[in-house]
């Protein structure tokens, strides 16, 4: 048990770094476990630095800054405080222990304080278990590039491309960024110029929304091809293009470690009933984490799983839930990290098996697709059936077991998310579920069902002005239907749209901003469960 904790410290240049210097100058001893990194201000400390540190094996991270009011840059330290609070929540969820992250104010003259903090922190960490994470951050790319590509070409029908351009004419990104063309990318691979593509940004631009696949006369499954090639593509480029500084994806990676024991059930509402073993398992997804990462959007994301559980309880189901449910791995799969995806898949499937569940329901289309389709492809047929919540609700409505008690007189427009819609063909159950609510008038956007438009970002990649253009266009379309409420079954759609509407918009906000709600939350409302 006697291990020496490794501490990574971020010291701000003006106060805390000088304070640490003073400790040395004053010959005050402290344990040698800390490794300091100088930054200009504690406000510089990106949560991603902290997460990376932990992912790579730091047992503790120390962030020090000037005392509040003394920040050389006015209020950088206050920003740091807020951010680190946030990261602590993530650490808490992950079960790593929020106390592994410390934020202290150390001034230039506080050499003694610095030494004290380090000594105390080291002692504390000695008493805790070492950080189980020791992973390599970057997945290893296979060496046999040509082989991988030619297998992918055959598997995804890329070889049958007719160069008709229908894909680019359908691609929401290509329409606003004509430097990007799925067709040209395919042609380059076919002619042997794939290396250019692997080292460029094109591979990371694809939204994997499947609009091109839906319409391609040669059944070229371009997003699947892109996914296969992402394994071989430049990780540096990817990291540059990954939004939110790669934190959500890092969290997924962290969860692959078998020692991670999360604490992720705090969102459960009072009186919620669930079990360790049941026929039906509710797979929650990463909402507890997104709730923290996207705190500022005030999306009340936890209402989604809360609504689901309330609904299930109301109809007499006490769902099984995994207390250590891992991320389904969707974003890892779609960014080419197959090794880690496989780890998550195997863990989740084994855990679900333990519960004896024969049906798994999820309120996230990405989890839905991943569990139903990608897990099956990887591991063979599963012992359980996978349903989206809307399919279950639709079933319950048909059986007469789900009744709506509240009238909600409003016009609602429904967004078909890519994963639920084009990927998995689920178009009618969500509509049925919504339309049955008394008082609701369900509107349709012109581009609906298989022609619906993606919310503009996938796997946090390439979120840029082009994605914004796609998002604004889609929101305007939704608004133009005259609906009061935009309903989606996908939390990611909501997050991305909230993101764009929180910024300064190039168009009149009136034409774009809409009230948004998740399908499950709406249903819970209509059942008087909120």
């Amino acid at each position: 048990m006697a291990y020496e904790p490794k501490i990574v410290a971020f010291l701000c240049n003006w106060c805390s770094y000088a304070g640490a210097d003073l400790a040395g100058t004053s010959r005050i001893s402290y344990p040698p476990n800390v490794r300091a990194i100088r930054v200009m201000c504690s406000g510089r400390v990106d949560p991603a630095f902290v997460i990376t540190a932990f992912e790579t094996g730091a047992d503790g991270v120390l962030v020090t800054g000037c005392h509040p009011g003394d920040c050389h840059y006015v209020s950088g330290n206050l920003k740091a405080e807020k951010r680190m609070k946030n990261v602590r929540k993530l650490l808490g969820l992950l079960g790593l222990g929020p106390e592994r992250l410390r934020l202290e104010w150390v001034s230039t003259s506080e050499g003694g304080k610095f030494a004290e903090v380090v000594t105390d922190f080291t002692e504390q960490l000695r008493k805790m278990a070492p950080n189980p994470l020791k992973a390599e951050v970057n997945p290893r790319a296979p060496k046999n590039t040509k082989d991988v590509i030619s297998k992918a070409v055959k598997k995804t029908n890329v070889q049958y491309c007719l160069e008709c351009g229908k894909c680019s004419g359908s691609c929401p990104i290509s329409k606003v960024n004509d430097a990007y063309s799925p067709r040209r990318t395919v042609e380059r691979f076919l002619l042997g110029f794939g290396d250019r593509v692997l080292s460029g940004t094109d591979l990371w631009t694809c939204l994997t929304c499947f609009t091109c696949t839906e319409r391609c006369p040669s059944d070229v499954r371009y997003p699947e091809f892109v996914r296969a090639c992402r394994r071989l593509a430049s990780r540096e480029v990817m990291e540059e293009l990954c939004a939110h500084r790669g934190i959500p994806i890092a969290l997924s990676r962290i969860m692959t470690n078998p020692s991670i024991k999360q604490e992720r059930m705090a969102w459960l509402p009072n009186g919620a009933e669930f079990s360790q073993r049941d026929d039906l398992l509710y797979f929650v997804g990463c909402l507890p984490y997104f709730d923290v990462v996207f705190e500022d959007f005030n999306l009340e994301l936890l209402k989604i799983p809360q609504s689901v559980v309330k609904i299930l309880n109301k109809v007499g189901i006490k769902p099984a839930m995994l207390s250590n449910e891992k991320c389904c791995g969707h974003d890892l799969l779609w960014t080419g990290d197959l090794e880690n995806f496989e780890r998550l898949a195997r863990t989740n499937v084994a855990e679900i098996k333990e519960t004896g569940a024969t049906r798994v329901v999820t309120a996230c289309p990405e989890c839905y697709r991943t569990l139903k389709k990608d897990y099956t492809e990887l591991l063979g047929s599963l012992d359980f059936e996978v349903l989206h919540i809307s399919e279950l609700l639709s079933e319950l409505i048909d059986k007469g077991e789900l009744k709506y008690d509240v009238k909600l007189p409003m016009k609602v427009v429904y967004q078909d998310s890519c994963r639920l819609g084009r990927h998995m063909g689920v178009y009618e159950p969500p509509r049925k579920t919504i339309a049955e609510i008394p008082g609701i008038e369900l509107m349709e956007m012109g581009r609906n069902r298989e022609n619906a438009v993606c919310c503009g970002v996938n796997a946090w990649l390439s979120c840029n002005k082009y994605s914004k253009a796609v998002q604004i266009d889609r929101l305007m379309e939704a608004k133009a239907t005259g609906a009061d409420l935009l309903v989606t079954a996908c939390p990611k759609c909501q997050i991305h749209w909230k993101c764009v509407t929180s910024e300064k918009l190039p168009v009149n906000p009136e034409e774009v901003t809409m009230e948004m709600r998740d399908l499950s939350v709406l249903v819970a409302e209509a059942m008087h469960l909120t």
Partner: protein
Amino acid sequence: MFICHCGINIGGVVNVPEVVKYAMTLPNVVYSEDNLYTCSSEGLSKIKEGIGKYNLNRVIVASCTPRTHEPLFRATCEEAGVNRYLFEMANIREHCSWAHMHEPEKATEKAKDIVRMAVAKARLLKPQEEPEIEVVPSALVIGGGISGMTAALCLADQGFKVYLVEKEPELGGMLRHLHKLYPTMVDASEGLNNIVEALKPNKNIEVWASTVVKQVKGFIGNFDVSVQRKNGETANFRVGTIIVATGADVFEPVGMYGYKKYDNVITQFKLEQLLKGGQLEKPERVVMIQCTGAREEKGRTYCSRICCMTALKNALLVKELYPETDVYILFRDLQTYGREYEEWHRMAQDRGVKFVTYALEKPPEVVAGHDGKLTVDVYHALLGEQVQIESNLLVLSTPLVQHEDAKELSQTLKVPLGPDGFFFEAHVKLRPIDFATDGIFVCGTAHSPKDTAESVSQALGVASRAAIPMAVKRLRTEAITAIVDESLCSGCGTCVKICPYGAIQKDEKGVARVTAVVCKGCGTCGASCPEKAITMRHFTDEQVIAQALAALGRAVA
């Protein structure tokens, strides 16, 4: 007088009711009406009705070109008891409404003039008879390739005698040089053998190999054909119908893409022969260039139809022989039409054949590389960049072209060649394998580039077309012929010299006499006779002059 609206084709430009009224003012016009579509059953009934009701003995239909419906209207008149040659058409569509679409008033005035001219002629028309001739129940098939043999066999099996004339020493034509035929990939030689074997014992077919047609005289039902063998032997046949199945040649692209300059540049046809003979040595990389010498801006502007499929077929065969060989196909538009040819494109894509699209404006360039290799520099039209491909075998897909000696044959038979050099049919849509000259038919690549299956269909087709006159044994011939007034003939012999069909000869009295059945009614004799002794039935001097005068608004006598 029946004036047609032809929907809006005429009525949309010409004021038809006005023309109807005008017609009534013309001499001898006792009845005039307009129809929406005179050629419809309704229209034809009205003609018959009008003839009966108004006791018409001359009928004019002012509508489209006589080249479409003249036979129909003539037959209708005849059914109503009016000799078919007492019928005249006024072309107020092709010659009027369609050509003057933006000047309706002028078009209407012109329509009136045209109608007036028709009346002027109609008044002078006389009834004519169409003499019947017997049809010899045998056919001449020129060309012993798959088309010729198929036609010959089909006709023979229907009971007709067939003379199959082939200029080469053996039958088979292009099939002798081909390797495998798409889409069934049957061996060309196997297919060829099957049909030659079927042909040999057939008692109705007389094969004349190493033979060419020297002269053809006569007309449908009675063609006099003279042929000559290479060894000088001659023969004469009497046939009722003639089928042209002379095939085509492969274009040699001298001067293009290094052909004949570099050894490793060959035609697709040559590749076919190499594959057939098992003589293709392993090439590292093959580049095929489609549309070499075809679909050009000027000259050979046509698409040769078969080159894309041939290239795909041969590419697949090369891949089968040498799986590591790279094959590139440089093309403009891939002609993979029909029921299953698209699947060949997919098959080629499956086997890793690489496709590069190039544009007419920026054709590939071929330069010599190192070690005898060639570098093909092509602007990839769909990527927008230059692509260099090194190759040690360049295959040029060239079009089929008409034989050099076709011109002679076309003159011998008096059948035309079209602008692309291939034989030109009677009507592109509805009479694709008939010639305008009755009794002569065309099939196979002599008509236009096509593959074996399509040639067989056309060959069977002509077997039906040719069988018709031979099956009914008697035909009515042209009534529009020349006749000499012997009392006026001075025996100068001018007409004899200029008749293109040899239909006029001087008899024992030294006076010109027309063989009506040979005469095609062209009228050149009538125009040249210094004594005005020759009358062209249905196109007499008086009739023609009356039309001219009527055109100029002079009163008709």
